[in-house]
């Protein structure tokens, strides 16, 4: 009997023909000890989720295990029949997922969903089961467990839902917990709480945790040992301290070097540079409800006063729902602000009608978060880039020539102009979006979480590109992000938003090194992996 919760030996999983490689994972070996947290790190497509699914026996038919073995508490479960796996799930191994809203059944009360696990695996009476659920909910630090049991998933917050998931996963005290990006969909402050919770539960229950993540900050917080995957191959496996501080493999080195440092860059911002865009008391209120429903008001942005100067970057940081994207969309006039001024080069554009606004639209351009939805799938890259210039009456061949120059600027091949967006990866598409924005020769470039959906190495490349372009074209940039590390690297000034209001606003150096507002401090305290000096290798 070994004392490992999980052992994976030479695990090889095939991909269907026509995929970009033949194997999802190739001879991957690692183990998770009892009471140990092993982080499986890798970029998208590295095969980390496939490994989790193979352990749980959740692999789709198209991905068969073709070699190696998976041992759970010394039992070979690689080819265990479905009935056996069913009795093992929740009892010896459990899994929690990235999106707790979709992992929970929306039409069942949370208590009933946990109860289902107990009904299936135990012979306990109703009263015993209920007691056990209440205890478990107390253990995951949910307030008012009775009420939580009777709630439906949509009545809870994201963090609370993830706690319910954890309670459900651990209620039968399994030896192994698989966590597949469990905090990726959560805000940093919630993420910090959930990570702490997993750590403390894992300690008290002696559970082995296989924690899948792409975030090195999270790895630094939680891992005992780290396994790094690249294109289905395990490139490095060792104790956290070793992997993070003395990575042996070039790929690991590259990944760690790509993680932005949370220390702000020293930047000389010219305080006399002309103001490109300013908002004064900007407000956006969403009104809900119709003829019969009760009217509701959501104050998405309230009294937002900001300034972006030429050649400088203003960062807006905040958690989801803080109103940062609302501000950006008001400035681009994708939505109409409810009150306040938006001064573009001194001219208030907040109340301009569509026709008066059109000539000014070229001055402000925006790059969105999701590279897969930012380009029209039915138009070629070239058409996308020249669309703006054509709208402003520039001749087609002139616009195409400009597009070719821009492709070189964003370091892409000019041949890409004739292709369709689906032929490009996320990072390449984001470069195309930047080129499309630059084709308008804007004065202000807004990046709305423009690097958030990208893998860390690609993110570093796109950030570097944005920096270079800002400097070369002397652009003003409004950089919206939830990621403090990214903000620390690119921003001259930072505005911290919470619940629609700017709670702190100042030079990046001051905000990062001497945060004044308690919300800002909480935000910084929650940032995972603060203790590690990433990005300094």
């Amino acid at each position, binding site marked *: 009997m070994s004392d490992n919760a999980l052992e994976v030996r030479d695990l090889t999983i095939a991909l269907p023909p026509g995929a970009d490689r033949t194997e999802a994972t190739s001879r991957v070996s690692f183990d998770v000890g009892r009471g140990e947290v092993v982080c499986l790190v890798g970029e998208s497509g590295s095969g980390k989720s496939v490994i989790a699914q193979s352990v749980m026996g959740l692999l789709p038919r198209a991905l068969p295990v073709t070699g190696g073995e998976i041992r759970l508490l010394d039992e070979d479960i690689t080819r265990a029949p479905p009935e056996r796996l069913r009795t093992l799930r929740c009892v010896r191994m459990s899994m929690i997922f990235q999106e707790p809203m979709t992992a929970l059944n929306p039409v069942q009360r949370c208590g009933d969903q946990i109860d289902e696990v107990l009904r299936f695996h135990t012979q306990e009476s109703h009263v015993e089961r209920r007691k056990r659920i209440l205890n478990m909910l107390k253990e995951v630090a949910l307030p008012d467990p009775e009420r939580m049991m009777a709630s439906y998933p949509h009545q809870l917050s994201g963090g609370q839902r993830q706690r319910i998931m954890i309670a459900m996963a651990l209620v039968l005290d399994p030896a192994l917990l698989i966590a597949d990006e469990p905090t990726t969909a959560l805000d940093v402050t919630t993420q910090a709480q959930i990570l702490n919770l997993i750590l403390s539960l894992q300690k008290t229950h002696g559970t082995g945790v296989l924690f899948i993540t792409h975030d090195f900050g999270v790895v630094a917080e939680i891992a005992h040992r780290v396994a790094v995957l690249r294109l289905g191959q395990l490139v490095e496996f060792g104790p956290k301290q070793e992997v993070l501080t003395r990575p042996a493999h070039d790929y690991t080195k590259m990944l760690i070097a790509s993680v932005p440092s949370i220390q702000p860059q020293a930047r000389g911002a010219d305080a006399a540079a002309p103001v490109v865009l300013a908002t004064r008391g900007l407000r956006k209120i969403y009104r809900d409800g119709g003829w019969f429903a009760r009217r509701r008001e959501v104050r998405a942005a309230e009294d937002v006063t900001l300034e972006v100067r030429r050649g400088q970057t203003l960062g807006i940081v905040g958690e989801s729902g803080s109103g940062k994207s609302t501000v950006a969309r008001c400035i681009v006039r994708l939505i109409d602000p409810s009150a306040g001024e938006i001064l573009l080069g001194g001219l208030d554009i907040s109340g301009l009608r569509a026709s008066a606004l059109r000539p000014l639209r070229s001055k402000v351009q925006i790059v969105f978060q999701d590279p897969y939805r930012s380009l029209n799938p039915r138009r070629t890259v070239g058409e996308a880039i020249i669309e703006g210039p054509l709208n402003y009456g520039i001749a087609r061949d002139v616009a195409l020539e400009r597009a070719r120059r821009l492709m070189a600027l964003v370091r892409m091949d000019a041949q890409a102009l004739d292709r369709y967006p689906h032929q490009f990866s996320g990072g390449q598409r984001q470069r195309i979006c930047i080129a499309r924005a630059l084709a308008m020769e804007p004065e202000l470039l807004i990046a709305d979480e423009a690097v958030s959906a990208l893998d860390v190495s690609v993110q570093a*490349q796109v950030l570097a590109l944005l920096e270079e372009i800002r400097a070369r074209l002397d652009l003003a940039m409004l950089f919206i992000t939830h990621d403090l590390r990214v903000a620390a690297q690119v921003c001259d000034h930072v505005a911290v938003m919470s619940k629609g209001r700017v709670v702190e606003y100042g030079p990046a150096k001051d905000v990062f090194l001497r945060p004044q507002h308690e919300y800002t401090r909480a935000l910084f305290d929650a940032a995972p992996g603060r203790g590690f000096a990433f990005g300094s290798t």
Partner: protein
Amino acid sequence: MNAPDARQYEALSIESAAIVRTQSAWGRVRASWSVRIGGSVLALLVLLALAAPWLGTVDPTLFDAGSRDLRPGAQGEITTLEGETVKHTFLMGSDSLGRDIYSRVLYGTRVSLLVGISTALLALAFGIACGLASGYLRWLDGVLMRIMDGIMAIPAILIAIALVAMWRGSLLTVIVAIAIPEIPRVTRLVRSLVLSIREEPYVEAAVSLGTPTVKIMFAHILPNCIAPLLVQGTFICALGILVEAILSFLGVGLPPDIPTWGNVMAEGRIHFNEYPHNIFFPGVFLAVTVLAVNILGDGLRDTLDPKMAKRV
């Protein structure tokens, strides 16, 4: 900025290694068996309809008192418009007026396919226009959709009967009468598609690029609605063929002398017990056509659905 360090490893990044391979939508469509089968049957029907005069048919409106109620395959004679009497084999028998069912069914294929395709195109054209307007120009939405609700509240067949009664039965009337009740359904489909597509970042990007509203609607939103519309179009086509047959059968469609499957069946209804072939042959054609169109539609839906367009 730590970018220079990151860039030195750029070759190691997953992105440069990833090859994105997708099968084109058209390739998937051609590989689908449903599309192949439905498409070939339809192609065969179109061929039959076009080549009807050369497939041993006579003028479908000709009748001969001497050749009434013949069994399928029976020999008989038929009088042409010039007054000549010619020998003719009645492959599918003849009806109670002595008309050749085979000729009537084959010529009826023309009418059915024409009605089916025209109804689909007409309903799609108006549905797309109303749906785009309603989904993108929100101030129009309330009014337009209430009108559509109104049309939908009346049973489709009732509208068709009323319209044909108002304008008298002609091919155009029947097509319009069948298309109108379908317009609200297409409108709703297009509207729901537009409502989700208009929130896509690429549409917002187009707005910030200063693209005029009309161009956004037709160059950005409409092309992304095509796949579901194509599928919906095939279903309307099948329905149009059916409704045309029903109208003719009820005697409110095209005039009885025009050869349509519904008219042939209506004519044969009275003597159904003795001469079932009068209903059997047009019925088989009707069923096969509608089935083929529906199979084609299913195949298109399975292959063009955005969820299917993932990486292979």
